[in-house]
């Protein structure tokens, strides 16, 4: 039972890293970006290809995946996303679906439709078990690694948001873009940076999750719903909301699939709909939305 909880937490942390960029960009620009999963896929493929073709060590691949996706995010933000900020939501949805379709088909074309397998280094492969019986806790080393990395990232993000000047600028822009611009904050630059970092984090999440979630060209479509659940349930006004939502989702999903495998994703979706009917603005939002 503890093992399931542990796996659920690892899964939830991973989802959080994947989705946090989406939460921030959605809160900042009110932009519904369904193509977020594509950045995660890019990160995953960067890692896989670097490891297979050039024998780059796994740990070195992670920052490269982050940089690659961040760069791609910055370029796309600058060229394609920016004109769409003030368009209606329908246009944004269509645009990002189109982008996702393109990403899926290109990955299929260039890399092939098969599932990619990642070769983990030896020291991440083992498994440690503590206790016994019903309270046994089995921890895969890789999952432990994921939790450690994600927790460190979460703390770093929280620090940047709460303590640094950039964080206060970002928070000001999220709260009220026009007033922030009036106070002399360059909202465009703030947003470009945030978008790039968010995409980079998604890429890092994709690289970390390639082993756990599986990596194939349909990745952006398969996990799009999960990212959106995290954002919709957690709300976009802070990063603790998405964090809690991601942990909840991770644990519910792993537990659901373990105890009642017949129902599959049914539990998670029903739970999401119930929560959204109950609190349309998200579970952890204090005010009634903008």
């Amino acid at each position, binding site marked *: 039972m503890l093992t399931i909880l542990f796996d659920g937490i690892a899964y939830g942390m991973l989802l959080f890293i994947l989705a946090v960029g989406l939460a921030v960009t*959605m809160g900042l620009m009110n932009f*519904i970006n369904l193509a977020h999963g594509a950045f995660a896929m890019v990160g995953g493929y960067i890692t896989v290809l670097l490891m297979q073709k050039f024998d780059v060590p796994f740990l070195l691949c992670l920052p490269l995946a982050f940089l690659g996706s961040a760069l791609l995010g910055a370029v796309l933000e600058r060229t*394609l996303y920016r*004109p*769409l900020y003030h*368009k209606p*939501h*329908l*246009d*944004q*949805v*269509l*645009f990002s*679906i*189109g*982008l*996702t*379709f*393109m*990403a*899926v*088909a*290109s990955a*299929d*074309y260039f890399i092939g439709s098969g599932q990619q397998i990642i070769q983990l280094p030896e020291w991440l492969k083992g498994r440690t078990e503590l206790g016994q019986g019903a309270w046994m806790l089995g921890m895969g080393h890789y999952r432990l690694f994921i939790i450690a990395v994600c927790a460190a990232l979460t703390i770093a993000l929280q620090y940047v948001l709460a303590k640094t000047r950039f964080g206060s600028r970002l928070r000001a822009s999220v709260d009220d873009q026009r007033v922030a611009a009036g106070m002399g904050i360059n909202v465009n630059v703030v947003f470009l940076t945030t978008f790039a970092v968010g995409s980079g984090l998604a890429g890092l999440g994709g690289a970390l999750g390639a082993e756990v979630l599986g990596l194939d060209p349909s990745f952006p*479509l398969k996990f799009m*719903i999960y990212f*959106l*659940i995290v*954002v*919709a349930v957690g709300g976009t006004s802070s990063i603790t909301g998405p964090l809690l939502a991601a942990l909840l989702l991770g644990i519910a999903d792993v537990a659901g699939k373990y105890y009642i495998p*017949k*129902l*599959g*994703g*049914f539990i998670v*979706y*029903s739970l*999401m*709909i119930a929560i*959204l*009917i109950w609190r*349309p*603005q998200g579970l952890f939002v204090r005010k009634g*939305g903008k």
Partner: protein
Amino acid sequence: MSNTQNLLRQTGRWKRWEYPLWLLALASPLVLADHALIINEIAIVALFALSLDLILGYTGIVSLGHAAFFGMGAYSAALFAKLVMPDPLVGLAVGIASATLLGALCSATILRGTDLTRLMVTLGVGLILGELANKMDWLTGGADGLQGVVIGPLLGQFEFDLYGRVAAWYSLAVLLLMFVLARRLVNSPFGATLKAIRDNRLRAMAIGIAVNSRLTLVYTVAAALAGAAGALLAQTTGFASLDLFEFHRSADVMLILVVGGVGWLYGGVTGAIVFKLMQDAISSITPQYWTFWIGLFLVVLVLVGRERLIRPWTWFGKGKTGGTP
């Protein structure tokens, strides 16, 4: 008769060019006998897009899970034909009825919240139904699809042939019927209140429109039309599979509607023709990667803007933006 009534009557009146258009459509299976199958598909997709237009174009609800009702109609019509009786018209009625029921249930989920919430909820409903159809394999055949559906002759005399001519007429007739109904609906005072809700929900509420009951009703009607489209597809192909609930189906129908024009009943029909012909052409060139071109098309469509894309003469210079066609 008051002024408003006159206005509604006028926009609702059949234009002169519409009669030959529909005659042409009904004659097309005869004239283009080799392409009856694709005509059938176009009619079905057009009906599906028409139903989405009711909620997206006229009421302003962004839905990414409209395939739920499509699949529901298809599966119930197919199951009815397989288990109870093979008559197509009764099957169609059953498909519509079950989709209507589902629509009425789901309409409670779209009343509150922002665009994002609605998007998520509609998407979730579609996923849940897909999951259900997958897991209830004793009834639906699971991932293999529902096989062995035999549909009886239409009205007891017209057997569905291999070339799909009867199927095409059947679908076109249902499309025409539903189109007339939808037209009546959007040009009635009820339709006018829907547009008011789309344009400014708060103000609509303030002038005394019962927003929630209107939304419930239109969502249910749209679900019924989508169910009819699904039932037609299941009956004319004699097959129902999990593919019906897939996300890309909801996305495709949205694309169709946007290509043809949102908030315009012929938008769905036009979009369906353009999309199906385009899909046919592209997938004959690159069968595996045609989604890439669809994606590219979407991106360009949004970035350039639909108005300008279909009016190439405005590409140069400061083009003036035309009204909706």
